[in-house]
């Protein structure tokens, strides 16, 4: 399975108890010029994987390469009246990085941006494997 698929599965598991929130595996997630996560609030959308293959260890016979995979996820909620369990949901999404296996480095971070009266959480997951 791809890392995106693993991530969707783990996010779904981690926020399953917060019934107001959903996870979409839809691609692409744009309607016209508007991202669907702005249109469908409290739904997590997961982007396509970006890959970066770089040299991990040069050797005389064959260089060992590593693949760095970046996946972004998006969630929008009302900025003025945020769901009471939003912190737990965000924590659950960040923790979903552990659902991706066969990697030796994994990290996740979130940034927020308030536009008009809604807040968008942009998650970035990074995975490194050989």
């Amino acid at each position, binding site marked *: 399975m791809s890392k995106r698929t693993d991530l969707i599965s783990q996010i779904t598991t981690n926020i399953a108890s917060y019934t107001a929130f959903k996870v979409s595996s839809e691609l692409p997630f744009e309607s016209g010029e508007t991202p669907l996560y702005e249109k469908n609030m409290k739904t997590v959308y997961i982007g396509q994987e970006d890959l970066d293959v770089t040299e991990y260890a040069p050797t005389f*016979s064959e260089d060992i390469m590593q693949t760095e995979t970046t996946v972004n996820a998006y969630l929008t909620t009302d900025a003025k009246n945020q769901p009471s369990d939003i912190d737990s949901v965000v924590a659950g999404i960040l923790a979903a990085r552990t659902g991706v296996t066969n990697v030796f480095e994994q990290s996740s971070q979130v940034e927020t941006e308030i536009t008009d009266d809604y807040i968008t959480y942009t998650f970035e997951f990074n995975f490194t494997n*050989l």
Partner: protein
Amino acid sequence: MAVINTSAGNEAVLKLYDIVGDGNTTIIDANVLSIPFMQDVTVNNATGTFRYKTLDSGSESVVTTPATNQLSLNAIVDDDVFFGAAGTGVVVTDGLFGTSGNKTEIGFRIYFDGTDSGSKYLEGTGFISGLAPTVNPDAPLWVTPVTIEVNGDFTEAAVTP
């Protein structure tokens, strides 16, 4: 005059093999263990010295003593090479770990720029030593230093056509 460039597709190559008969360096291809994933290799020919002072000189004098010859390298651990694999020859079947543990004397050739005709190499015999495989979560491949304690001289030669 020319530099030896290992980045032009003619990389440094280390081959280990069983010593045949009385220690000559006849190589039986099936018994050769080529060390893959070498990250660096160092040939060390350290001539021993003895310094002494005399009353009639303002400076020390020196005489040479037998050299200490070593070949050392760091390599990413390959399963078959480190632990041995099916095949013929003690070096191939025992691998680096078994050869070191059994203190088996082996032959070696270090090719300076590949194995094409004309490439220079040093050969000799010695004992595998200094294995210390290590790994950590941020560097998930096992890497080990390897030292060949050379028994006697390095002998220079070139690959013949």
